[in-house]
């Protein structure tokens, strides 16, 4: 197994640099590691990268995904049943890095597995596995001093989350180890909830821009290529999670062959990709 040497430039920064040059916006999705199995998860990561995803958020499975909606709760349960956990998620990223050293990988999930591994041990292992950043569902910056220090030491970013009601001190913090992009959540509520209107999204992005110099990506509630396109017009990237997971599950129900399934996945990704590119390149 080839080990990727630590990078000087974080892949997330590199990605935004490249996209800026191409005048394009980032398209991001989320998948839970080991849902439904380690091998299929790995295949999906490759399909994502191959069909136009710029950055992948990888959920590390947790027993109590309390802040998520039903879709992602169930994905967590399938992944746990397949033997998934934080350590296996790192294995997955390491395996992905054997063929892809460019697509940024961001770990996303709950804090207990992270604190259990220890902040320093976690940061070191994550960097070694080729991970570029961390989104912690239940780990606000005001609690994260020690974790952020460990991340900084190993060249990883903690990605700040910004909600409309959040005060600047809780997301616009400049500190080594905090960066990558600002994850802008335009609606209050769990994952898989209702969509915000494009006006509301634009306002939320506008507010983020006033407070932070980081690139802004918008997630939560983006459910169609059309909305993704609208989001891309105002933000630097768009994140689609629940809508894609639900869509892929639907495909699966028809019991396609692996090849057919991955074609479907690629097509779906591309429909979003094209909508985004059309709206922003045009």
């Amino acid at each position, binding site marked *: 197994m080839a080990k990727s040497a630590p990078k000087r430039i974080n892949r997330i920064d590199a990605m935004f640099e490249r996209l800026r040059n191409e005048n394009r916006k980032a398209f991001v999705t989320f998948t839970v590691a080991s849902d439904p199995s380690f091998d299929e998860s790995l295949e999906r990561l490759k399909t994502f990268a191959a069909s136009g995803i710029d950055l992948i958020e990888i959920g590390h499975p947790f027993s109590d995904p*309390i*802040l998520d909606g039903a879709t992602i709760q169930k994905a967590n349960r399938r992944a746990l049943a397949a033997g998934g956990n934080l350590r296996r998620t790192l294995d997955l990223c390491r395996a992905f890095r054997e063929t892809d050293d460019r697509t940024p990988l961001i770990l996303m999930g709950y804090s207990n597995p*992270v*604190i259990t591994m220890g902040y320093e041990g976690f940061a070191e292992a994550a960097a070694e596995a080729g991970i570029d950043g961390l989104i912690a569902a239940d780990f606000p910056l005001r609690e994260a001093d020690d974790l952020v220090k460990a991340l900084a030491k190993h060249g990883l970013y903690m990605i*700040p989350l910004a909600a409309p*009601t959040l005060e600047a001190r809780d997301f616009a913090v400049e500190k080594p180890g905090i960066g990558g992009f600002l994850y802008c959540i335009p609606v*209050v509520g769990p994952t898989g909830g209702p969509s915000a209107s494009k006006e509301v999204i634009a306002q939320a992005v506008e507010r983020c821009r006033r407070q932070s110099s980081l690139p802004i990506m918008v997630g939560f509630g983006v459910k169609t290529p059309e909305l993704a396109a609208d989001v891309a017009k105002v933000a630097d990237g768009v994140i689609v999670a629940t809508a894609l997971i639900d869509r892929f599950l639907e495909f699966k129900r028809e019991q396609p062959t692996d090849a057919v399934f991955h074609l479907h996945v690629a097509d779906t990704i591309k429909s979003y990709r094209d909508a985004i590119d059309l709206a922003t390149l045009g």
Partner: protein
Amino acid sequence: MARALKVESRPGRYGSFGGQFVAPVLLPVLDRLEAGFRSAWSDPAFHTELTHLLNRFVGRPTPLFDIPAFPSWSGGARIVLKRDDLTFNGGNYANSAVGQCLLARRMGLSAVVTDTGSGQNGIATAAVAARFGMRCTIYMGARDAAAQPQACKKMRLFGAKLEIVEDADRALSSATSAAIRHWMGNSDTDAYVAGAPIGPHPYPEMVAAFQQVIGKETRLQLVEGGVLPSAVLSAVGGGSSTIGLFSSFVSDPSIRLIAVEAAGSGEAGAPNSARLSQGRRGIFHGAETLVLADAEGQILAANSIAPGLAYPGSAPQLADLVSRGRVETMTATDAEAQRAVRRLAETEGVLICLEAGHALAAAEHVARTMEPHEAVVVMTPSSGDKDIDILWQDS
């Protein structure tokens, strides 16, 4: 006075435990709540109304009760029960439900949301919300709801909207998750009512403050009777009655404070609920605390014959008090707790819940080693009515 149990290292912390491990979107909500609580708690009018409600609505003070015929030995310390089972709707949840609803109303909120497992917290919250004319939404797992049809009807009689959760374990954990998500989406109108001093700051501090009335009453009642206890025991579930009772004795180093945990079947390796004595440091339900988790940080299912003790997390204050050695831990098995409850019923005509049975079983061991002039207090947070089917099985 809310700070009796707080040894703060930084805001919202008890030693190294506590904090606010929540979705960032909840931070402003928690900040508002903290400010609202501090303002209310320093307002004498708030205390006047709270006390009035505790006396005239909840039915406090609750009595202390001697159980001379219970011990299986002679000599040793006497055991005294603090009978919070004798409040309205039978339990100490009412103490903090009243406080939190009163606070929510003071903060201009019009609704409350909570979760419930056995139905006790839901019933208390629904009753208080009815009294305050506030909308009330209660999430309950489908499995729990099926097991507690009476509790469901009671919440509905109090006008609460009961949402049955079919997700995941269809029990408390999915109910909590659903309630938190409801709250995240409605925090401008709804207050989340916590059943226990767990969760992100300021919940642990706030719930503990509202439950302190247990300890204050107990201390006063004992002093009136001319005794100070040698040990105070309470079985730990969410920890509301434990913190509430311990609060008035924690600064008195001569009094032993003993948190009793459920050992389940007691077999080595079998699931239990002993996270204070055997748990790991972790982050769970919004706070850094001691949890039952595996080496990968996955939360383990807790197990006990007493549903109220089977919680994998712990109140951060308790985690701190245990870490600092101020609170001791003991365990009691399912069988020991059952035996204690049955014997108390037969010898004293008092039916306490299996949760309290754990503390009583431990208290007997502790009291036996003491002198007859000493006293040991055991918390009885709710009545054993809910456990009758477990305790008496017709053959």
